[in-house]
């Protein structure tokens, strides 16, 4: 669409790295489909796309972690085949991953030393580390233990470690997803500097305003294919969002025409500290879901969705009982089973290990959520026929395909297991249903079944809350959609007024869903 003529700068006109028609298959799933990419020195090149678009896969191949099925890579005009990351590093390719490889209880210097060649003395590494860190404005204290550092500071270790190997190409995978706005600014200063030194930078992100601020070029992936290469500074956030999430703007969902009744699930100023230090702090989350409607929560994973689900299900108790209200009764301090007895049902994101016990039979997995309120337990004894009956009913109603009547959960395909998990909850005719990522990793047929089931359930008067990264899905079934970002929930948008771009902007951190002009967009976030 907005392809550019060949580039050149003072560092040469030949691309440093060329990816030619790179393809990667996992079984029948095409993660990358014939992707071309040119990276030039002294350039910051963005790789844009939604979750699942294929960015990580492409980049892992450039770093030698996996091999392409088709296509080739050329480094400085020479064809290369990378057997592993160490070979990539030798060529001069460095990578800063989204999920760090650090040792929490060791010091900064020790962490850096462990990632470098053992022939250099520890003292020398410490010195070089301090110098490099200082040079690039990423201050690090060599003697501090990593667990004391903020996530942003930890990322500095990864970056400095990569820089100490003098890379010609530095790849950064979603680097600002864990940074504060100020830390992101500091990072951009560093990246500009690296660019000035002639290095090439491949910057993976889904944050449009950042990319517009920072990057010279942007390649956009969608569904494993390359959609465009363009100059982000010449685009609007809206046009970038459109390329990222799909060109059809017209898919706006009309008002459902369902009878919407009273609020059956109310989240009232819910604030919660995360269980684990890498988690997200929930901040005054408020939302009402009425009977008969489907409310969606969109957002990139890692913005507090897991914590919110745990607070709603009762796996984590809220500080106040009024933070979560189910059918008018304060439930914030009640446990999971009590909430189930109140008529609430839950479907977590993780099918195996959380939603089901993988090695247990379906009947036992039916018991897993059914024992509290579904008549499967009589005087402490499990009514096995009742659990089997649930399996049978679920199988029939939701078309769950399996090899025998009552197999282990792990033996079902993703789609069928998901139909079972969603089905067992829907069959309870709950008053409130909270479901997280209902069709993630699920084949199209099963996804359609599940979505229709959710719509039908709402039609019967249930309040349905759907947390999903799949915008198509939310646009299809949600009556109202809010966006989760950094632990905060935006105000919901009605189906009539919601658009992909608005959601895309909110997912990227914009303050409102309205499409501002270009200046305002960069103003709104992190400036």
């Amino acid at each position: 669409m907005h392809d550019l003529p060949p580039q050149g700068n003072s560092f040469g006109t030949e691309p440093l790295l060329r990816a030619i028609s790179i393809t990667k298959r996992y079984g029948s799933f095409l993660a990358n489909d014939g992707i071309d990419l040119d990276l030039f020195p002294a350039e910051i090149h963005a790789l844009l796309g939604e979750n699942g678009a294929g960015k990580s896969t492409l980049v892992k191949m450039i770093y030698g972690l996996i091999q392409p099925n088709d296509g080739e890579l050329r480094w400085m005009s020479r064809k290369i085949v990378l057997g592993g990351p160490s070979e990539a590093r030798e060529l001069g390719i460095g990578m800063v991953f989204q999920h760090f490889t650090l040792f929490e209880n060791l010091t900064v210097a020790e962490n850096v030393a462990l990632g470098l060649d053992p022939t250099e003395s520890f003292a020398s590494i410490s010195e070089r580390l301090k110098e490099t860190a200082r040079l690039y404005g990423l201050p690090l204290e060599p003697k501090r233990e990593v667990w004391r550092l903020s996530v942003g500071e930890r990322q500095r270790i990864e970056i400095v470690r990569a820089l100490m190997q003098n890379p010609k190409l530095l790849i950064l995978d979603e680097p600002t997803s864990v940074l504060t706005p100020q830390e992101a600014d500091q990072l951009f200063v560093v990246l500009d500097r690296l660019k000035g030194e002639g290095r090439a930078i491949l910057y993976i992100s889904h944050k449009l305003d950042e990319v517009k601020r920072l990057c010279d070029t942007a390649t956009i992936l969608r569904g494993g294919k390359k959609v465009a290469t363009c100059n982000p500074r010449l685009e609007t956030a809206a046009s970038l969002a459109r390329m990222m999430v799909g060109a059809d703007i017209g898919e706006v969902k009309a008002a459902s025409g369902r009878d919407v009744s009273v609020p059956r699930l109310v989240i009232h100023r819910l604030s919660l500290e995360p269980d684990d230090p890498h988690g997200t702090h929930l901040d005054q989350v408020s939302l009402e879901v009425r009977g008969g409607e489907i409310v969606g929560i969109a957002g990139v994973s890692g913005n507090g969705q897991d914590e919110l689900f745990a607070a709603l299900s009762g796996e984590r108790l809220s500080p106040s009982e009024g933070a979560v209200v189910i059918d008018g009764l304060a439930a914030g301090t009640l446990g999971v089973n009590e909430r189930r007895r109140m008529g609430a049902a839950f479907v977590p994101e993780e099918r195996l290990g959380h939603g089901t016990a993988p090695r247990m039979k379906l009947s036992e997995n039916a018991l897993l959520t059914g024992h509290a309120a579904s008549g499967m337990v009589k005087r402490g004894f499990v009514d096995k026929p009742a659990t089997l009956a649930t399996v049978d009913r679920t199988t029939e109603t939701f078309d769950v395909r399996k090899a025998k009547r009552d197999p282990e959960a792990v033996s079902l395909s993703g789609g069928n297991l998901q139909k079972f998990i969603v089905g067992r909850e829907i069959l309870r005719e709950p008053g409130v249903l909270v479901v997280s990522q209902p069709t993630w990793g699920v084949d199209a047929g099963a996804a359609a079944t599940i979505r229709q089931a959710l719509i039908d359930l709402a039609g019967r008067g249930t309040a349905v809350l759907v947390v999903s990264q799949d915008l198509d899905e939310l646009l299809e079934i949600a009556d109202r959609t809010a966006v989760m970002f950094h632990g905060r929930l935006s105000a919901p948008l009605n189906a009539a007024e919601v658009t992909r771009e608005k959601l895309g902007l909110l997912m990227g951190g914009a303050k409102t869903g309205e499409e501002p002009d270009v200046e305002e967009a960069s103003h709104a976030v992190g400036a």
Partner: protein
Amino acid sequence: MPLVLERRSERSAMIAIASPLIAIALTLATMAVLFAILGKNPLEALDVYFLEPLTDPYSLGEIAVKATPLVMIAIGLSLCYIANIWNIGAEGQFLVGAVAGSWLAVRTNGTDAGHWVLPAMLLLGALGGALYALIPAICKVRFGASEILTSLMLVYVANFGLDYLVRGPWRDPHGMNFPTTADFDPVATVPTLIEGGRLHAGAILTLFVVMAATVLLGRTIMGFEIRLVGAAPKAARFSGFNADKLTLFTFAVSGALAGLAGIIEVAGPVGHLQPDISPGYGFTAIIVAFLGRLNPVGILIAGLFLALTFIGGENAEIAIKVPLDLTKVFQGILLFYVLACDSMIIYRIRFISPLRKPAHANV
């Protein structure tokens, strides 16, 4: 390394069933080698250990007598281990149960107490074991202290406690200074089942415990909770189960069973309280639990098998002059093989050809 361990895509059902048998076979082979090193005829030794005790009724009775505490304790331990809770202190709980029940026997000794004494003793024994087991459980739940170490340390404490009591306050004044209480009155003794043998009613109780455990694990919601907490802790939380409460429960139950086994042993075969009422039942029960694959019926069979080796060991000491310690060696080796075979259910061993470069994991 040309050999690597790899996770199977699906548990191997075949090995799951055959695992205890393979382990036993491997152990027997290793023992044969050991016998040879000790200068004994391997086949003869194996015969004395494993086959001879099966040949005469008195031996069979003795096997049942020894199996009774083993199985009872192991059932309790299996409940803990299924839920990934490590009660290593069953030996101590056994002793404390014995002491608790014996208190009543000593108190009522020589008086004209009625038939309520024995049931009361059994109750006290179970209670004592349960309370003693709650100590490491509470240390874990409240303070996060390793239950492995705390439960084990308490074994030594229990041992010393028992020693003190039988040498001091509870010593039989007419016992010629032996460290033992007076023999228990008939009302404080567990009745035998067969005239002339030592097989006693405790065996019936043990069978009952096996059946109860089978029902608990297979049919009740409590059993489901135990299995779920061990199998998928996150799903257990999602199911509304509280891991702390379960820790307290399983420790209390296994302590109660160990304590019950203790008082039965003292009030049955032994007949009075003395320092060495246990040849390490609490520890051998751990092996019984694993060999029985944490399944009540499996434990019953495993318990009988290990009891067999106890008797075999005693016979071997006399018949072919093999020290009793060999039984411990056998048990240790057996446990190793059982664990290894269990591992093979989830993993397989593969050759990696030196030509194929292993792909790097994430960096």
